[in-house]
């Protein structure tokens, strides 16, 4: 510090540079064995044999199959997929919101005066652990379990998505709520408000846009999940896609993928509109 006072003008060299360069080198050194372990060889995509196989597969896609019967079938299946995703996310919301409210430190009253009390801290940790368990089991596994319990069909898909997405939504809600400016919420809590009152009047207005956009994004992910779940017999677009793939019918696959792109685009537009509304 005394040296800094003796030489007040810093040298024209960025003092952060050596550290940054070292960190980059270290990252590259760590990536190398990872690349070897995963047999990461992107250039093998470009050799003649791979190119021929890809070209044949892609050539199959055109022209997409647009016969009215098939389109009607795809439409019904997509509607089913949307329904599975929406029902699953709605169920997940019903569980994730109360769990996030329990788990977030932003609404702790005992923390107002220093450390959180042991009992609330244990409750918050418990809810967090439950959220971890819920989301660490992939929805595919949940679906396989539920297909055995409730049989083939949409119900298995809905339940699988509901469980995994409760974990994901809950975790991110907790973090979004804790990332907001704590001052408005703490001021209300300090003035004797209840937790839910402070949530409704200070925390939610800050976080609403972020929470809404994240929820719509998760709905979009649930659309993709429900397609994958279709492959194990949970109904919808996935089941149809599975059948077409097994018959090597590229034209049908192409049509369904196009519908899928449309659905994801729709989710994106909905998210943008929601954020505009809440800004």
């Amino acid at each position, binding site marked *: 510090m005394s040296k800094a006072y003796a030489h007040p003008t810093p040298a024209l060299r960025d003092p952060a540079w050596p550290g940054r360069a070292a960190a980059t080198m270290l990252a590259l050194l760590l990536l190398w064995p990872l690349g070897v372990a995963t047999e990461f060889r992107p250039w093998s995509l470009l050799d003649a044999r791979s190119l021929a196989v890809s070209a044949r597969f892609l050539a199959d896609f055109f022209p997409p199959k647009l016969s009215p019967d098939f389109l009607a079938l795809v439409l019904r299946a997509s509607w089913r997929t949307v329904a599975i995703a929406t029902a699953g996310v709605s169920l997940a919301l019903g569980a994730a919101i109360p769990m996030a409210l329990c788990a977030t430190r932003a609404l702790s009253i005992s923390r107002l005066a220093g450390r959180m009390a042991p009992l609330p801290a244990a409750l918050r940790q418990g809810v967090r652990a439950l959220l971890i368990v819920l989301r660490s089991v992939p929805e595919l596994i949940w679906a396989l379990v539920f297909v055995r319990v409730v049989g083939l069909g949409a119900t298995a898909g809905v339940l699988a998505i509901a469980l995994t997405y409760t974990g994901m939504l809950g975790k991110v809600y907790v973090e979004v709520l804790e990332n907001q400016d704590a*001052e*408005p919420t703490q*001021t209300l809590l300090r003035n004797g408000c209840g937790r839910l009152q402070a949530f409704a009047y200070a925390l939610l207005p800050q976080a609403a846009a972020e929470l809404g956009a994240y929820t719509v994004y998760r709905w979009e992910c649930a659309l993709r999940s429900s397609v994958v779940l279709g492959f194990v017999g949970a109904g919808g677009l996935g089941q149809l896609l599975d059948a077409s793939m097994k018959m090597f019918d590229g034209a049908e696959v192409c049509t369904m993928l196009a519908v899928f792109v449309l659905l994801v685009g729709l989710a994106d537009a909905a998210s943008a509109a929601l954020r505009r509304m809440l800004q």
Partner: protein
Amino acid sequence: MLELQGVYAAALSAAALPRPVLFDIGLRLDAGEQVAIIGPSGAGKTSLLQLLACAQAPLRGHYRLAGKPVWELRRSALQSLRATLFLAPQLPPFPPRQRVVTAVLAGRLPAWSLGRSLRSLVYPSDLAAARAALAQFDLEQKLFERVDRLSGGERQRVGLARALLAPASLWLLDEPLSALDPQRAAQAAQAITHGARQRGITVLASLHHVDTALKFFPRILGLRQGRLLFDQPRHAVTPDLLQTLFAPQDPSLDAAYDAACGHPAMADAPLPALAAVMR
């Protein structure tokens, strides 16, 4: 109303090893009193207000509010005791995009049930009271504006209007007039003292502007380097006393304290040199 005895306290959100910023404070306020705290910046005015707002337990000493030993209460009792006081931070903490009417009505929350609080988000519950409170600060035309579209001074006055709606018997106002021009400051000080007198509310306000403090508050506390230098009725606050209060600080006190507590006394910071410049 409230009583402090031999209180030592650290700043809010202090480090793991809290270091007192308030030393040996003794204070008694009777119901309905109106008191101003003055003193140089860094004297501990905000910490004192936060201590009184039950934001943090003192390191040593006793704090009784409404006859109750605050830090011996159960958490739920402490939280209902907090509903009897209103702390207005210097920068009014509103979530962005909240409307003025909601921000002001948030003062009422401790008196409302959760159901009524949520209904009030759908349709403002006590519009007349909100407008009347804003009118005290010449802001009734801003009732339905968004708080993030107000100027700094307007936001501060909205924060004070919130106090008028709070079901509190003690107002703790941290620099309530800091963002206001002299004319607005006088008007706001008038509204605060008048509103408090009407409702029989005890007021403790920190003010950096000594003339305003002397004009509107009958009792003055002088806080200097964390100690109560004087506690006098306003006519006893002499220019000599004020000069002692605002005289440049003697860093040897800090150093002596640090030596006593074994803190590294920020040894290489050139404190004596700085003090010499200030003299």
